[in-house]
């Protein structure tokens, strides 16, 4: 029972890990624009 649970939890963790890496998530990053996402997050810059 416990080993089946650990298998399920381990596979789930592995999938989440792969997705997080693919997305570039990193808990310890200093993110410049953490509350935004995608290209629409920027503002237009005028010199």
């Amino acid at each position, binding site marked *: 029972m*416990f*080993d089946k649970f*650990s*298998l399920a*939890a*381990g*596979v789930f*963790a*592995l999938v*989440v*890990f*792969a997705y*997080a*890496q*693919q997305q*570039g*998530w*990193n*808990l*310890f*990053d*200093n*993110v*410049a*624009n*953490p509350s935004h*996402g*995608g*290209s629409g*997050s*920027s*503002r*237009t*810059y*005028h010199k």
Partner: protein
Amino acid sequence: MALSTNCPSCGAPVVFKSASSVFSVCEYCQSTLVRHDQNLEDIGKMAALVEDRSPLQLGAEGRYKGVHFALIGRIQIKYSQGLWNEWHLLFDDMRTGWLSEAAGEYVLTFAEFVEDRLPNFDELKIGQRFVLASRTWTVSNIENAECIAGQGELPFKVGAGYPVPAVDLRNQAAFATLDYSETPPLFFVGEAVDFKSLDMNGLRDGMAIPTPSVQAQVFRCPACGSPMAARSAEILAVGCVACGAVVDAADQNHQILSKALGLRDEKYTPRLPLGSKGRLEGKPVEVIGFLVRQSRVDGIAYDWREYLLAGENGSYRWLTEYDGHWNVADGLSRPPTSSGIVELDSVSFGGQSFKHFSTSPAAEVIQVAGEFTWRVRRGETSRVIDYVAPPLMLSSESTDSDLSWSQGFYLAPEAIAEAFKLSVPLPEPVGVFANQPNPWAEPHRRVWRLFWKLALATILVQAFFVFLSGGKLLLRQDFVFDPRAADEVQTREFEITGKPRKIAVKNTTSLDNNWMGLDLLLVNKSSGAAWPAARELSFYSGYDDGRWTEGSQDDEVVFLNIPAGTYYLTLDPDMAPNKPVAVRDSVEVHTAGAGWSNFVLVMVFLAVFPLFAYFRYAAFEARRWAESDHAPVSSDDADGSDD
């Protein structure tokens, strides 16, 4: 070549089949005849053999390792536990050997000449180990036996009352006997053999299989008059169920070995009544004997129960019970060689390593009921050493004259109840027993195996992202910021290609006991889209009982999901006005690679399961070993306080 002649006493024909035979007992008049070339000398009558139930007789034939042999002589010997026969064998290749027959056990040996000095009889002790004929031996039995009678052809003189001091030696591969009835002593080496494997024929009628389950004797307890029975000649002692007296079953007068108990302790009632029949490993067994042993440690008495089981073909097994834990045990004819009576940390046997668990210096028999194959007495003690490799247990039991080994296998009470079809459930086991299998051992192994597989998969995923995505340097440019002219600066342009990416900007400065604010702006040249980031760097250091630092000269900030295009950065410094020191800043822009924090986190998460499995497994082992001689000493025990 055989020598045929006539008995000088009665004239009957006497044939010496073996050239090495010097003595022969006339089968008609029992005269002991000594061979002198072609003449025979009569040196007196041989005592009569004691009737036993051996299936063997002179003239019987068999095969050993493919070589045919015949039984040409016999010596009957009396020892502390009864009688044994030594059958003199003549092989077709003219070798002679000996087939020892005792308590249903058969050992075939050959005389071996050794140049080594043989130890004196008095020098040897049970369990002593020494090297002889380039092999290591352990003394397993010391007997001051006595010859009762001889029969047929023999290579030396024997007679009634002839002393036969003998020492049995064992190692895992062989069995040996040192026979001190001759000077110098004789050394015989051989092995235990299965009776059936000898393919014997010409056996005594009605005794083709050496089984003790024939010719039971029934008698009355000399102490209380209760009926008692011994099922075979191998039963040497019977404990009275009614009064507890132990009677010598082999003695015609049924001499009492241990007196009757004043009051039988009801707590030692056998859970498997004498006469209970069951099946263990598919083979029928019957409970014929029950005894209780007790060992004292620090004044506390520990007692366990042992049941002697009669099996098929004269075989015997044991069931032991302690606090609801059961073991089925068998005697070992080829015991471990690495240990005698001295306890070792571990013993190798049957390809397994057994760890020392406990030593009971004086395990005392305190209750006896039923039949036993040795002259058991209440009050007799033995030294018991247990080694464990769950579910197996290896036990050595030694007295001053005997050393025996047995191997036990742990059984759950349910298995015993099923084997004997008990209607009343057996008591639940208390605590963890020495060789009780750890129920968490297999899950522990499975979870660790799973962990290694998942860890490998995680490493491969991490390697994929590290090597195949990110980490490419897009820009490196150095600036010097002067607080007196801290204007905004702009980097060179750089290209971001492909899908939207995570971009990292790293500033490495020469700040020293200083701070600096830095407003970054990542700008897409063609669209004008910009991503701001405000950073503050500070770095201070000094000496105060040693060097100290605070803050960092470096900083890294990431921009997520930056689309492809041509970009540049603007950097707008805000510097400490009261410290007019220029600060160098090296700016690096690169596509961000896979982070390691997720990797570390997922590895920690995956490790939780095997660690939990390990602690669960280890807790069971700790409970097991807490009952051993190797239990960790608690602080309470260590300080010797009595409260």
